[in-house]
């Protein structure tokens, strides 16, 4: 909310400086977002009188002025304005002054060879308006030499953020009351005039919706003149508040709202027919509102209507049809109390914001209807003339005050600061609370935010000063801090740093995807799709980390990155139990383009392939503590992957710990990425917790006494036999002696029969207490060959 210092001083008697007021506003909870002080901009400009004006010797359009600045010798100033003439008074900018409109610093200079010691200014140059036809002409009585800031009495403007719990401060008066309590001066409440209305209000007023509009007061003023603009002092206040003057009548209601936080409305009586009633709208009823838009209403909304139709979306916005115009002569003033909740619901449904809604929705002062009406009547009669009638009242506002039993010791218990009881009483009283001798605190009905004792603590502490709250250390557990990380946290931390150590860059990508991208990775029925996305590209919650990383990789490729290695640790979102979400912690990796660049040693660049994905998957699973030696490589990585170059890693047939491989060309096409692209997803919630106790000691170290020996076997196997099946068979041939088996060569082609491949396996035999004899080695070899034979393998001769 914006307001001028001048306006504030209507309600606050204070000598405090601008800076002191700003500091106090911040201190008591009204955050100052800005102060605009026109005097700052007008420093160096003063009232001056043109003594003589003569033509410039070398320029047709310029004049050479002799200007009286109020002290010393007159100054010579060159001026191009056509209205500059001897005897006039205007505004002179002296050397050193900065022209507000363009930031130019004035200097003593020579213009076409004639010395100039300043500049006579236009309205636009001083940012006081748009006129630029000539220089400012001040009245005859303007005192020469006075600073123009003082002369124009330009008042500084505060821009203050009012928190939504304080609608009572959405008017200058409320802010003044708070400041006074905060020690900044004396509060001067508005003086409410007594209006002697003549005769009863001729328009019948009624509320048929006491729930939505508990009270509706009004009166008619006959014979107003709305053809002239509102007086300068009203316009000045409105402009400072950032409001555009509209017409005298509308300006009066806006003035009341900004001064006292009290919205009101003015109807043109000539446009009304029959009683004016607060009622529920009928479903489908429409209104053309003052913002020139038409709104369709429903029966939850409270409106003000007459026999002909709706004239006002109660408490939110008036209708165009019955609004005040230049020709308006008789007006009906409306001051009503609307139910805050209903205003909020209606406003949201209609998507309609207004200053009135902001105030009604948060709660206006229910005791201020008569006063508000009297003030508005007085403003209009002063401004537009006319004769007011008596007030018509329908319904009653909820004026019953809340009483809070308060324990002043709570201030110290909750607020952490000792405030003497007398001081607490003073603060609350200044804020218009009534404090009984037994600390029963009666709250002013305008303070809708007070719900209980904690709110009173806040009042006391904020006025007393939060800066007086001393820091008090939290009690600390004895000894060294205990570990606090959860198992998942530890897992994520380990994986993150393992992935980064493997050369992958961590990315954080959006949790939402274009729906098509999400559907490429999951069944649409499983997806969470937003009702109100910020754009269609951010609509469906991701069922996989790959699409986001793929999009990032594509952006990198577009930037010219030859190869991209990205990973992300985050959640995938699925449907859970009872309509809740099932969010699965996941690690995703995407490798795109060049694995190694071309080089002097290795020649051509190499591209990522499915085995790079496998290497990442296994390394990360190992870092996660998964039993990687027991994992099975199985199919079904998903449709998004290349069917022949992808796999899952499972612990047991069902528990999928990860999937990896090359992406399907169709996926690449859908995401418009050039391949090959390989990817990994590690499903963190599937990784079993590490077995074993919580101890730190490792099993006893028992290195074998004897050296292991290796034997190589080359087998001819069916071309489609998985290498892992052969290796598993070989390893299982003698579980005691064989400690490892590893494929070191695979070959098909010349010398190998059609439909077969040659697979060479290195087997490591570990002797126990004594070395193997030749016979024992022979026996083990035979077992290996026999086991391999069961997989269709024959030893190559």
């Amino acid at each position: 909310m914006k307001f001028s210092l001048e306006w504030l001083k209507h309600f606050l008697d204070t000598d405090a400086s601008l800076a002191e007021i700003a500091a106090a506003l911040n201190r008591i909870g009204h955050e100052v977002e800005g102060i605009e002080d026109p005097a700052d901009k007008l420093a160096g400009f003063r009232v001056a009188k043109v003594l003589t004006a003569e033509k410039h010797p070398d320029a047709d359009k310029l004049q050479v002025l002799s200007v009286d600045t109020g002290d010393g010798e007159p100054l010579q100033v060159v001026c191009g304005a056509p209205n500059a003439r001897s005897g006039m008074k205007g505004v002179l900018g002296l050397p050193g002054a900065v022209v507000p409109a363009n930031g130019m610093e004035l200097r003593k200079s020579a213009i076409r060879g004639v010395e100039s010691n300043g500049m006579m200014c236009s309205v636009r140059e001083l940012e006081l308006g748009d006129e630029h036809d000539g220089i400012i002409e001040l009245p005859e009585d303007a005192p020469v030499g006075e600073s123009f800031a003082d002369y124009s009495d330009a008042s500084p403007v505060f821009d203050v953020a009012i928190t939504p719990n304080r609608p009572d401060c959405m008017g200058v008066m409320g802010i003044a009351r708070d400041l006074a309590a905060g020690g900044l001066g004396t509060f001067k409440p508005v003086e409410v005039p007594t209006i002697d209305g003549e005769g009863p209000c001729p328009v019948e007023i009624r509320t048929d919706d006491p729930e939505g509009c508990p009270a509706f007061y009004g009166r008619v003023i006959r014979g107003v003149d709305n053809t002239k603009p509102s007086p300068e002092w009203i316009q000045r206040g409105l402009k400072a508040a950032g409001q555009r003057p509209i017409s005298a009548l509308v300006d009066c209601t806006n003035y009341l709202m900004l001064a006292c936080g009290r919205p009101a409305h003015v109807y043109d009586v000539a446009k009304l027919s029959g009683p004016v009633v607060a009622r529920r709208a009928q479903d489908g009823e429409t209104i053309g509102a003052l913002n020139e838009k038409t709104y369709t209403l429903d029966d939850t909304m409270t409106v003000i209507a007459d026999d002909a139709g709706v004239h006002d979306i109660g408490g939110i916005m008036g209708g165009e049809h019955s609004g005040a115009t230049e020709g308006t002569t008789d007006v009906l003033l409306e001051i009503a109390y609307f139910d805050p909740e209903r205003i909020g619901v209606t406003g949201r449904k209609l998507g309609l914001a207004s200053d009135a809604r902001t105030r009604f929705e948060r709660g206006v002062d229910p005791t201020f209807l008569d006063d508000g009406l009297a003030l508005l009547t007085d403003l209009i009669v002063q401004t537009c003339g006319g004769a007011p009638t008596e007030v018509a009242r329908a319904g009653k506002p909820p004026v019953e005050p809340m009483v809070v039993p308060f324990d002043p010791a709570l201030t110290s218990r909750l607020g952490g600061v000792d405030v003497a009881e007398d001081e607490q009483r003073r603060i609350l009283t200044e804020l218009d609370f009534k404090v009984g001798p037994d600390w029963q605190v009666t709250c002013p009905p305008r303070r809708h935010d007070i719900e209980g004792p904690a709110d009173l603590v806040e009042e006391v502490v904020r006025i007393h000063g939060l800066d007086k709250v001393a820091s008090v250390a939290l009690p600390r557990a004895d000894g060294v801090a205990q570990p606090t990380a959860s198992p998942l946290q530890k897992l994520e931390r380990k994986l993150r740093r393992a992935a980064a150590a493997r050369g992958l860059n961590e990315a954080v990508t959006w949790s939402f995807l274009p729906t098509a991208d999400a559907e490429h990775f999951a069944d649409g029925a499983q997806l969470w799709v937003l009702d109100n996305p910020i754009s269609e590209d951010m609509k469906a919650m991701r069922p996989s980390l790959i699409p986001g990383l793929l999009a990032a990789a594509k952006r990198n490729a577009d930037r010219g990155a030859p190869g991209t290695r990205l990973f992300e640790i985050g959640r995938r979102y699925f449907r859970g139990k009872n309509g809740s979400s099932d969010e699965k912690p996941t690690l995703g990796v995407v490798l795109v383009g060049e694995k190694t660049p071309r080089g002097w040693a290795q020649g051509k660049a190499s591209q990522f392939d499915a085995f790079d994905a496998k290497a990442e998957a296994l390394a990360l699973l190992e870092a996660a503590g998964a039993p990687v030696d027991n994992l099975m490589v199985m199919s079904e990585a998903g449709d998004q992957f290349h069917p022949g170059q992808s796999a899952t890693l499972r612990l047991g047939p069902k528990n999928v710990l990860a999937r990896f491989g090359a992406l399907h060309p169709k996926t690449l096409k859908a995401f418009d990425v050039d391949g090959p692209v390989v990817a990994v997803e590690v499903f963190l919630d599937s990784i079993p917790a590490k077995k074993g106790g919580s101890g730190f000691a490792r099993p006893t170290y028992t290195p074998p006494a004897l050296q292991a020996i290796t034997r190589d076997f080359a087998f001819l196997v069916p071309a489609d036999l998985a290498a892992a099946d052969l290796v598993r068979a070989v390893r299982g041939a003698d579980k005691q002696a064989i400690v490892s088996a590893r494929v070191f060569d695979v070959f098909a082609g010349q010398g190998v029969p059609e439909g077969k491949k040659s697979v060479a396996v290195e087997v490591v035999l570990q002797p126990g207490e004594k070395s193997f004899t030749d016979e024992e080695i022979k026996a083990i070899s035979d077992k290996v060959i026999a086991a391999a034979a069961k997989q269709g393998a024959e030893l190559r001769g």
Partner: protein
Amino acid sequence: MTDLANMRDTALARIDDTGDAAALEALRVEFLGKQGSISGLMKTLGKMTPEERQTEAPKIQSLRGDVADAIAAKKEQLEEAELEARLASEVLDLTLPAPATPKGSVHPVSQVMDELAEIFADLGFTVATGPEIEDDWHNFTALNMAETHPARAMHDTFYFPDVDTDGRRMLLRTHTSPVQIRSMAEQGAPIRIIAPGRVYRSDSDATHTPMFHQVEGLVIDKGIHLGHLKWTLETFLKAFFERDDIVLRLRPSYFPFTEPSVEVDVGWQDVNGRRVLGGDGDAPGHGWMELLGSGMVNRRVLEFAGVDPDVYSGFAWGLGVDRLAMLKYGMDDLRAFFDGDYRWAEHYGFSPFDQPTLSAGVGARA
């Protein structure tokens, strides 16, 4: 015995003249092999009289020894020369590049979250998490924002069309505060948690992204008041920025879930055009920046979460993690956080070995 002397001279000269290992070996066979000339002389000793043998033997043996020594010396000399020649042929241009290994990085948000966890662990806070797809009860109602509360509208909420089986509207959490409710409901009081994570608001401009990160803090215990809140935030910020001159300014504010509510500003100074935290915001060349919202937990919130507000009190705060990262590490564009640009990762990312620890200081220096 000029014969022997001649033999010696000839043999040594020929050995000396030898150019390669094979020729040397041939000489060794010629002189010292089974049929060799010197071996032949040795054999003559057997036929001599003891007197002759006594005078001849040392001479022949001396010859044999000298020739053997000369061959050994020559062999070593040849091998040395051969090694030198080989090494001379094995020169590499080591100005050529070594094989490159890719360098990975940790995202600043992760790094800062690790830093937060480290600092707050020392203060006895555990880390709690909750769902990002929330219901409106946990996100709003239980935080004292009823259906019609104006503050709900200020949250720019992303909604799903779905309701859960309790009829609650599903949405993307707008803050990490629902984790307060869930943690209190699960663990009761006393409790000290931080809850970092992704949050969502329907807002997108130069300084706002529809997804960002927050860290919630919650302390509930007996006898907790605003002074504890102030100390905790001061202590945390001093540890996080590793500066003792962090000055906080508390301003009264409003959040439905706290009462009293406090907005916390932190003093900064202009250092070469950059805002650097530290110092009194009112000092010349300094200013205040709004850093976080906090307050004493509203008793209604405690009631919703099943904690007795007449026994326990406490405070909570919410803080932007991305913002903290920017202030500490100097990024100026929030949107770049979510782009996955490898150049940005290389510039602002952290080494995997920058694991924050209290003993080394949680921050990773530039």
